[in-house]
């Protein structure tokens, strides 16, 4: 049993950290509901009936390009999660289940990707994307993000795939399943909690990323929301209402996705699906 004093200390520290982390977000959300004067006049106070205003939200949703930025972000994040999970799980299954010649070497090669930051290769990535005629497309972003996230997801998923009892795969083979069916009907359902973890890991940096959208899809209506807001900031440099409202709404989709995945995560942990 932990002593109550140290428990209080731990909770105190964690609480302080939480407050610190959430404070800027709270500030953004609070101020997004205020009139312009109030944002500058009383930045730290809650909106009151006299200062309350939805002008920022009206502007953001009145601008049709902002809506399409949202759609872009959701497409990129969703596509990346899907491809990362699919290929990550497939590679993890192949590397753990089958013994072939370059197995270990290949696993090692893939894990190098975890250590080398993908941004070091930005110049070559731009060249590659230009060569492929994919500049200013969402496909470019999805491909790059998938490549960026695959190494870690393979690493994590391999651990989980390895925990699936061998008997289970062999029982499935006796039941007449092809190797593909074993993957889709036995392996995937059993590593669902791990996939939720990987999805969360993948989703947040991709959603928040500014670097690759700026390099690979900066114009042509293919901007993601993070980039879209930046341009917004340049255009209406004084219009803080719109910026804060756009930022506040940008939190929502990723929050929803997180809730979905984290529920999977908890369900997975408690059900003990992988024995």
């Amino acid at each position, binding site marked *: 049993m932990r002593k109550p004093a140290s428990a209080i200390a731990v909770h105190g520290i964690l609480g302080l950290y939480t407050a610190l982390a959430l404070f800027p977000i709270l500030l953004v959300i609070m101020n997004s509901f205020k009139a312009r004067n109030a944002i500058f006049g009383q930045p730290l106070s809650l909106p009151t009936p006299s200062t309350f205003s939805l002008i920022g939200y009206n502007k953001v949703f009145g601008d049709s390009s902002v809506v399409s930025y949202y759609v872009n972000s959701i497409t990129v994040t969703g596509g990346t999660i899907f491809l990362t999970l699919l290929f990550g799980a497939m590679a993890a299954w192949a590397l753990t289940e089958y013994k072939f010649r370059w197995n270990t070497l290949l696993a090692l090669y893939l894990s190098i990707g975890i250590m080398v930051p993908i941004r070091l290769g930005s110049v070559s990535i731009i060249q590659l994307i230009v060569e492929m005629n994919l500049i200013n497309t969402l496909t470019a972003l999805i491909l790059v993000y998938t490549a960026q996230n695959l190494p870690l997801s393979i690493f994590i998923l391999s651990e989980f795939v390895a925990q699936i009892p061998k008997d289970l795969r062999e029982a499935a083979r006796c039941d007449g399943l092809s190797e593909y069916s074993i993957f889709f*009907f036995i392996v995937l359902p059993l590593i669902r909690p791990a996939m939720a973890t990987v999805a969360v890991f993948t989703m947040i940096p991709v959603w928040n990323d500014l670097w690759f959208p700026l390099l690979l899809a900066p114009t042509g209506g293919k901007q993601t929301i993070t980039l879209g807001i930046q341009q917004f900031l340049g255009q209406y440099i004084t219009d803080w209402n719109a910026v804060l409202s756009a930022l506040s709404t940008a939190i929502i989709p990723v929050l929803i996705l997180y809730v979905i995945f984290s529920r999977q995560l908890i369900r997975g942990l408690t059900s003990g699906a992988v024995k």
Partner: protein
Amino acid sequence: MSEVRIAKLFKSYGNVEILKDINLTVEDGAFVVLVGPSGCGKSTLLRCIAGLEPITSGTMTIGGKQVNDLPPAKREIAMVFQSYALYPHMDVYGNMAFGLKFAKVPKADIDRRVNEAARILQLEPLLKRRPRELSGGQRQRVAIGRAIVRKPQVFLFDEPLSNLDAALRINTRVEIAKLHKMLKATITYVTHDQVEAMTLADKIVVMNKGRIEQTGKPLDLYYRPVNLFVAGFIGSPAMNFLVAAAKKRDTLDLGDGHELAVKLPAACKVGDKVTLGCRPEHMTFGGSGKLKLTGTVDIIERLGESGFAYVRLPSGQTIIAEVRGDPKHGNGDKVDVALDAAQLHFFNSDGMRIE
């Protein structure tokens, strides 16, 4: 006909030979038990029959069809694993129906077969449960049910009772025996437990170090083991072995002062080294007669109606003799152990039985 025939089967991993020259026939409707110490290759042989391991050379036919290169699903076998290997994300019904769905069996047919199996195995109230909500014995029954619904030519059991507690093990053993009678199924069953082997089998295959040592009916193996390994493996506690020299045609010299007046088999010559085998249950603790050994009691294990005495001979070797009732002897007492002359086994210096 669902007969399994294995001829000249070899199996190796790299340079290591796991199975050597296996010749075995599992007759249609027979219950064959593969038994042996761990690492003897019995599970590997079963997995070769299942098609989960490729064989290095030899032939294997199931129901007259050569299956050497067929995948497990095409061999018309069903395997029950030691760990049950139930799909954790499906309910009991789903577990049993899963293979059939992939075999494109019509839905009504699947339903009928699963319900039939559930009825036989008394799983009807559990069909909607997940494996984790079942007890060990129930999981075991589901695993058997999953095998039954596939109507295989051959059932393969890989130590199916090892994960159950003692009471349940005996119960399930009886259930499996009943099931075999009812389904008239051809079964190959792997175990390291010789009680399971003796009680279930029509035919026992004793394996050691990748070879088949002896194949035969349970009591044949008990009464006429072909070599020292089988003699020592079948029966519990194990048979006592005494190394002796044939002094005369009717006298064995144990070399520690004991001379036993036994009629030696014809194949045995004077001067030969002979290993004499006698099971604990064929020895009478505190008995008398011409054929007896004298030693000191080390310890007596009393199990109730009977028990086992560990008796140290002058040579230092300990023999185990069955004790009936409650003997008055205590530890350290000198005692005579009488041997049943009709139940002696003789082995030559190569460890082979001589008659």
